[in-house]
């Protein structure tokens, strides 16, 4: 097998050529097998992503229209071909915004503490427990918010603000982590330059450090919002379920998009009379898919905005 391909090789080199082209069959087979498995793992992981995206899109697009987005579920029952998610969008936006209002100041200040001031045991334990906090199950965060308000206002409270508190427990560690990463990227020279000009420490941080890192912080906040906006379990136990529109965070139950998806799914197929005109048997599932589509679109939009912020507002030539 060597002679044909070696026109220039002198005769004595057949041995060497054999050695150099000798492939250990077993080893090569093993290498190929592992390559196949590794590539296969990636392909396998793409299957659910494609399947979820496709089914949500295919099932959800049917009911995803202006009517669906601008009507609540008030007065909708049985298999009526009606109903929408306006009330759920209102609830999700208000509750998430309020959670952001709580989380961002705390998270950002904590990040500033860790980067600019933190040292010793306190900083170490804050760092450690922020990491641990990212692992709190969302339902436990919900129970905590419920218990907190139950102690203050008495048991059985269901209102939007409780959900916001639950979401902020989940959101704070995410905000801390991403802000901390961004603040650490600010070169030390900038801080020293400002301090050397006689600028007080806090102004240095606010005007130089935060100003430099603002795009990164914006991105981090967007990603944090995207992570909690799909949370269902904590809202199920704290905010509850309602069919009509409620704008007031501080009174009464509110609907939210993820809970809406769950609720519609839970109601299941509608038993329609065979000759019923205005009755869609799968109406609840249809609405669930359409709401899921809305939710995924919102999450993707937030991720996209986060990327755009990084692309267009990131300071150039940063250390």
């Amino acid at each position, binding site marked *: 097998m060597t002679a044909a391909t070696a026109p220039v090789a002198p005769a004595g080199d057949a041995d060497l050529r054999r050695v150099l082209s000798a492939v250990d069959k077993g*080893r*090569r087979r093993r*290498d190929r097998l*592992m*390559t196949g498995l590794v590539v*296969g*793992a*990636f392909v396998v*992981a*793409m299957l659910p*992503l494609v*399947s*979820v995206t496709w*089914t*949500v899109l295919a099932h959800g697009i049917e009911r995803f229209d202006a009517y669906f987005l601008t009507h609540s579920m008030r007065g909708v029952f049985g298999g009526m071909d009606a109903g929408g998610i306006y009330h759920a969008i209102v609830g999700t936006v208000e509750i998430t915004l309020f959670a952001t209002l709580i989380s961002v100041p705390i*998270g950002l200040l904590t990040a500033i503490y*860790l980067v600019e*001031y*933190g040292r010793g045991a*306190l900083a*170490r334990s*804050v*760092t*450690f*427990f922020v990491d*641990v*906090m*990212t*692992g*709190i*199950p969302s*339902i*436990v965060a919900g129970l*905590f918010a419920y*218990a*907190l308000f139950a102690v203050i206002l008495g048991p059985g409270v269901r209102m939007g603000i409780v959900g916001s508190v639950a979401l902020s*427990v989940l959101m704070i*560690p995410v905000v801390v982590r991403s802000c901390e*990463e961004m603040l650490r990227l*600010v*070169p*030390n020279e900038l*801080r020293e330059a400002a301090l050397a000009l006689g600028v007080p*420490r*806090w102004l240095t941080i606010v005007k130089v450090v935060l100003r430099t890192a603002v795009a990164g912080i914006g991105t981090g906040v967007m990603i944090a919002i995207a992570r909690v*906006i*799909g949370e*269902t*379990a904590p809202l*199920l*136990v704290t905010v509850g379920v309602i069919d009509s529109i409620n704008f007031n965070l501080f009174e009464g139950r509110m609907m939210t998009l*993820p809970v809406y*998806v*769950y609720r519609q*799914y*839970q109601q299941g197929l509608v038993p329609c009379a065979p000759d019923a005109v205005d009755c869609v048997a799968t109406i609840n*599932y249809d609405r669930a*898919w359409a709401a*899921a589509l809305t939710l995924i679109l919102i*999450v993707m939009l937030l991720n996209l905005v986060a990327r755009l912020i990084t692309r267009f507002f990131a300071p150039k030539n940063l250390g």
Partner: protein
Amino acid sequence: MTSTTSPPTAGRRSDGPPSRPAPALRRSGRVRDRGASRVFRWAATGAGALILVVLAAVAVFLVLRAWPALTTPAAELTEKITWLRGADSLAAFVGPLVFGTVLAAALALLIATPIALGIALFISHYAPRRLASGLGYLVDLLAAIPSVVYGLWGALVLAPLVQPVWAWLNRYLGWIPLFGGDVSPTARVILTVGLVLAVMLLPIITAVSREVFLQTPRLHEEAALALGATRWEMIRTAVLPFARSGIISAAMLGLGRALGETMAVLMILSPGFLYSFKLLVAGQQQTIAANIAAQFPEANPLGVSALIATGLALFVITLLVNMAARAIVARRKDFSGAN
């Protein structure tokens, strides 16, 4: 890059890469400041301390609200809470729930870990460099899908799809106790739940182990290659030993997530309260989180208290798992021979 998956910072300070400029400034002795600067420093420190307070508050308030259930005699509990189903004490009720929670999480971990490691290796060592970050982003997208959507998908799409497979397993491998019993015609069983949970764990385990794989010193990889190792042998001699503790903590982070996942379980599993290893039979197991979400809306005050007690158990379990995972990562950072 999500925060759950970004490499933890505990103990990072010691290796001081160039992107970490702050310590130099900090080392310049005690901070002397007055007026606004002092207020600002206190505010920042206060926010840091608040994190610890919040975590403690979670524990305290859970204990406070769980207290009535923990102190009420068992007989009264079973009388007042309908869904205790004849369990003669709270502990006897929590037991099967803990079992179901651990079983579902273990199944998910068993399925997800090898696949996630494969994906991580694919991105770090197999895919063309130019495609790698884009492919990594695709995997991160899996984390962006809300759990309720996974639940919906699992119950309405995946379950009917896997039912024939489960039936086949039951017919031909039914002699293994795990696959025995009457296979569920709807596939609303713990194995389906494990499958969906595994999909949700993939991005977490992948992201952490990918980071660790990428940190493997190039020197060690080249040493293996120069000895005549194939790519897989290079990974086995240089990458995997280096990444071992990182892989363990990645899996534990995934475990923590799986233990606490609510919606996918709630929407897919047909619940039961048994210590049962039957993976293909409906009505056998239930997890703590799903049970809370299912019972909470209709529970009476004592019932709520009992549910919070189970939530407390879940909190403690996940806290321990997460602390162990983070501690491993933190220690690894200090002793890795990387730099």
